[in-house]
């Protein structure tokens, strides 16, 4: 093209030289994991027309598994046949080969591989020193690795500079562009328990096109919390994952992980302090795909809006899960002053249709300074069977003449301890 001539004439050496054949050739290949060759068994029986021909053909085929030719998954490794996809958190590996195509010795070869992302430029070459000479038909090889940390367009920029026998300095570059895609979709949800516990539900979806083995999905809690993973069922001796023995995720499959977070005692004491937005921790995800190709991602810090408790928080420290019908049982309430002022509290207990409180209602609890809390044991009984809601506690701050109502604090299961003679 003529235009090309014009442009290069206007330019410096490099473009000028680009017109002529370079003595060196640069080749780049992405090294994904090799794959296992699969063959296609077509068999027949001895009495069929081909006799043992098909069997013999399969036995002679070097890619079949000897002794079990019908097994399609062979042992022969094949090199990657296309660029494939690359996902955030995976390692990008590439073979860079500079070959002397000419018949003369080339000197002072410098190969440089840079990766340009949308935000930065990284040097990936193993060494930055020049190779003093390269004979004809010889190669300079380099295998580069880079853990991909950004999505979007990446450009591998390979630059080669060298000196010919005549002392001419030459230089050329090549660009290789690829897109880094997102491998996983993560959604989270928090549940606040009656106690200080927080449950985190994390849905992780594989949005790649190949199955993923989830090697590790763990929650790294922030300073304030301890975490328990609730993703395995422990039987007598060993614990088994809730996802089964082979924990891999098919494309577009979603899996739900559950974690329980408990504030550490020192933070729990100051329960009033856990207010507003708090940092819970982050998810750490490690997966593997074809032949152990590994990827790792972390979420950003997960944040949760702590439930608002108003001025006075009433939580339960102790409550039985199952009680007997019409038999008194004990609960322990913890009352925390979450406000900025001192309170003088009076506790009233109102019976509901099913719940009957024992003891004196309207008793003085005394003064409660900000962030202080006190525990009160209470006794009550239920007159109705089934799952009953505990309601009817009233706290009145005599300073402000303000009443706080606490209904549906918790549930207990009420059962009849006697078996009726009829049944």
């Amino acid at each position: 093209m003529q235009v090309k001539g014009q442009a290069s004439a206007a330019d410096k050496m490099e473009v000028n030289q680009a017109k002529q054949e370079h003595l060196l050739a640069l080749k780049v290949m992405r090294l994904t994991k090799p794959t296992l060759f699969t063959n296609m068994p077509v068999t027949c029986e001895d009495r069929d027309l081909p006799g043992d021909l098909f069997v013999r053909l399969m036995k002679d085929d070097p890619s079949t598994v000897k002794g079990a030719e019908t097994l399609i998954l062979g042992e022969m490794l094949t090199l990657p046949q296309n660029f494939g996809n690359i996902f955030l958190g995976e390692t990008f590996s590439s073979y860079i080969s500079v070959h002397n195509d000419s018949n003369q010795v080339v000197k002072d070869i410098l190969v440089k591989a840079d990766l340009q992302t949308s935000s930065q430029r990284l040097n990936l070459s193993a060494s930055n020193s020049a190779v003093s000479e390269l004979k004809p038909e010889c190669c300079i090889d380099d295998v580069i690795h880079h853990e991909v940390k950004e999505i979007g367009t990446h450009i591998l920029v390979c630059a080669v500079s060298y000196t010919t026998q005549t002392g001419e300095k030459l230089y050329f570059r090549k660009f290789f562009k690829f897109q880094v895609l997102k491998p996983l979709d993560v959604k989270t949800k928090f549940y606040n328990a009656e106690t200080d516990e927080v449950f985190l539900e994390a849905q992780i979806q594989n949005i790649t096109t190949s199955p993923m083995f989830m090697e590790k999905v763990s929650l790294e809690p922030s300073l304030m919390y301890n975490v328990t993973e609730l993703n395995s069922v422990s039987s007598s001796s060993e614990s088994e994952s809730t996802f089964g023995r082979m924990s891999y995720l098919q494309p577009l499959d979603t899996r739900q992980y559950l974690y329980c977070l408990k504030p550490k005692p020192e933070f729990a004491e100051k329960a009033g302090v856990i207010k507003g937005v708090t940092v819970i921790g982050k998810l750490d995800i490690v997966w593997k795909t074809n032949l152990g190709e590994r990827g790792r991602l972390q979420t950003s810090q997960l944040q949760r809006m702590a439930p608002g408790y108003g001025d006075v928080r009433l939580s339960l420290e102790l409550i039985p899960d199952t009680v007997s019908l019409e038999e008194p049982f004990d609960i322990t309430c913890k009352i925390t002053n979450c406000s900025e002022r001192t309170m003088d509290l009076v506790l009233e207990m109102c019976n509901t249709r099913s719940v009957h409180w024992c003891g004196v209602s309207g008793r003085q609890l005394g003064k409660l300074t900000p962030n202080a809390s006190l525990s009160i044991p209470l006794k009550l009984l239920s007159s109705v069977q089934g799952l009953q809601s505990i309601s009817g506690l009233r706290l009145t701050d005599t300073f402000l003449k303000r009443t706080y109502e606490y209904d549906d604090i918790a549930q207990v299961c009420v059962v009849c301890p006697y078996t009726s003679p009829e049944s």
Partner: protein
Amino acid sequence: MDSSEAPAPRPVTLAIDGAAETLEASVPPQTDPTEDSFREESIDLDAEAFVSPQDDSSHFESLKDKLNDQMMESVMISDSPNSEEEDVAPIDSLLEQNEEEEAKTTDGDTEERNEDVSTASAAEPEEASEALFKEESEEEKIVQVDDKRENVAPDDPKPEAPKTQEPALEIDTDMPPKDEAVPVCTIFNQGVLPKAQALIPDGFQPTLVKSPSFTIGNTETPNKLVPQVCQPSPSLSKFFTESSAVNPASDFFDSFTTSTSFISISNPNAESPKAAAPPESPLLSAATAAETVPTSTYFTPVATKPQVSPVEPMSQLQTVFPSGDDPFGSALITSDLDKRYDAWLPSDDTRKVLISVATQQISPVQIDREQLAMPGLKFDNLQGDAVKDLMQRFLGDQAAMKRQVLSANSVEQNFLGLKRLISTKNWRAAVDLTGRLLTAHGQGYGKSGQPTNHTTDSLQLWFVRLALLVKLSLFQNAELEFEPFGNLDHPNLYYEYYPTVYPGRRGSMVPFSMRVLHAELPQYLQKPQETLDRLHRIKSVCQKILSNLQEGLAEDGSMMNLTQDNRLASIQLWRSRLSRVMYSMANCLLMMKDYVLAVETYHSIIEYEPEQRVQLLSGIGRIFLQVRAETPGVTGSDVKTLPRPPKTARSNTAFVYLSQNNYADAHTCFSSVLKLDPKNPVANNNAAVCLLYLGRLKESLGQLESLVHKDPALYLHESVLFNLTTMYELESSRSTQKKQALLEATACREGDSFNVQCLKLV
């Protein structure tokens, strides 16, 4: 840098981008070819980075509503824990004016992209499917830019000079905001787009490396035109790599499967008109002559008996085949062997028809044609030798002349000839020959849907033909020809239907292997579920027959006394058939990537094939390595500790190393296998592959190359050749010559069924 010339392109690119934007807004992007190519040309940096966070969240809102009743919070994922924050690297000395131009085009480009991201991303994946990167050469980019200038410059009213400083400026102002966003990628809040992509079957597949260079563009266009049928990749396993939702296993010989071209409508131009349409043989009776098929010469040598009855032509044809038993003679000896092998349980409807034929309530003539299998060839000539074609193209006619392979003409026109073609791997010629033999039988081209009689031999011919089509990866063709056979349960596919020809003989004419083949076929055409359905049907029949045998009945459940030897032999046969079906199921499940069921099924085969225990367990281990399931009991490493031949153990250890990215130790292991078994092709090939990953291309290449030359019988295999040609491509720009040398090597050894794709010459 020439000051008068160099600044010029920059402002112009800016102007073009502006123009591009307005253009894009009104006109669909594809309409303007120059614009299109221009966009491909430019290096655009991260389109997504420019998508504003609000956009994302609103995307997500709507998605949330759709997907979840309970609202889930979207989460930001920061990159891997060991990421370091780095400052934006300054555009270093390497990035000179060219790159600045690219950066500029980028800006315009991304803006366009925001408007139609979906089209852009949908279009991209069509390209670049090769492992080797295609490069974007700078020279061509310059050409592009200059082209642009010439085209658009007149429309550009902006003064050029004042703008010369802008590129640098813009890059500076552009970077900082992006910089802040670096360490944490906000990738998880834009759910909609990526998901949509994932749902498009090949949305992800080829992706990534754009190849803008026009030279390469040419070769790529055909792929774009027929993406479904033609897949350029060779026949290598993809089951564990990026799943190609499009015909993964299809078309290793895609150049031949571009279906219509090989389904020749009529036979006139067929390769050997003389042989295919001979003058009618005078020896054949009026009955055969009535059939419109040009009845063949193949039968003349044997068809010497005078014709007797109307039923005869068929039986007469049968006598032609060397293995064909004389129907009248064999009628008296219903051998146990036949009974054992032919046993099958027809469906209830078919059974009723067969009973009424046997009891002479109706004659076969009265049976509704709908219920009968009336096959015929759907295409009749797929002669062709891809190796020879390639030789003609690359090495010239002279060299191509040297290529000698057997064709359908050069062998005996009977089963012996057929076997010769098969064993010399001339499967295309063999398919042709089956076509001729079937034509002679009255089931030739266009005969589908016409009443016909089946014989043991005609069905064997069909089986061989269809099996070879599958072996040649001509799946569509096989499916087409299988179609008239339905479920292989038509009454006329049973011996009972022909009481005069096969008196006393019972059971299925369809060989068991043909049923398996019939079941396996759909999985290669993206219908694995159909394959599983069919396999389960076969499996249940096998189990029923086995239980009949165990209960002291005959295979078909009738009260017949079998001798003990007979019974044991029959049980053994049906157990092996059952295990064959299970193998097919496991293989199909593996292709579907349902690893749990696949592993279970492979495990259950051990019970039937105890002598294959080691191979099966190793295979299961390899499946586990694919998915990396480290649970105690059945891991890859666990399998390797089983007592077994040291060779297998070492090679299994090597695979475990491989999965740990430890190519050095994997190489050592494969090499140690070679000490025990120096000729082991798998270990040799695998050791060479490991060397490549260790950055030792020349050694790896040398090893493979010497093997191929020393022992072509073992190493002229498509997987090895594929590896070798890939390395040639990586090694030097002169790979074509070396590939041609391989072509010559294969030409003198391989038959016409050789998969030339692995040579990557085209």
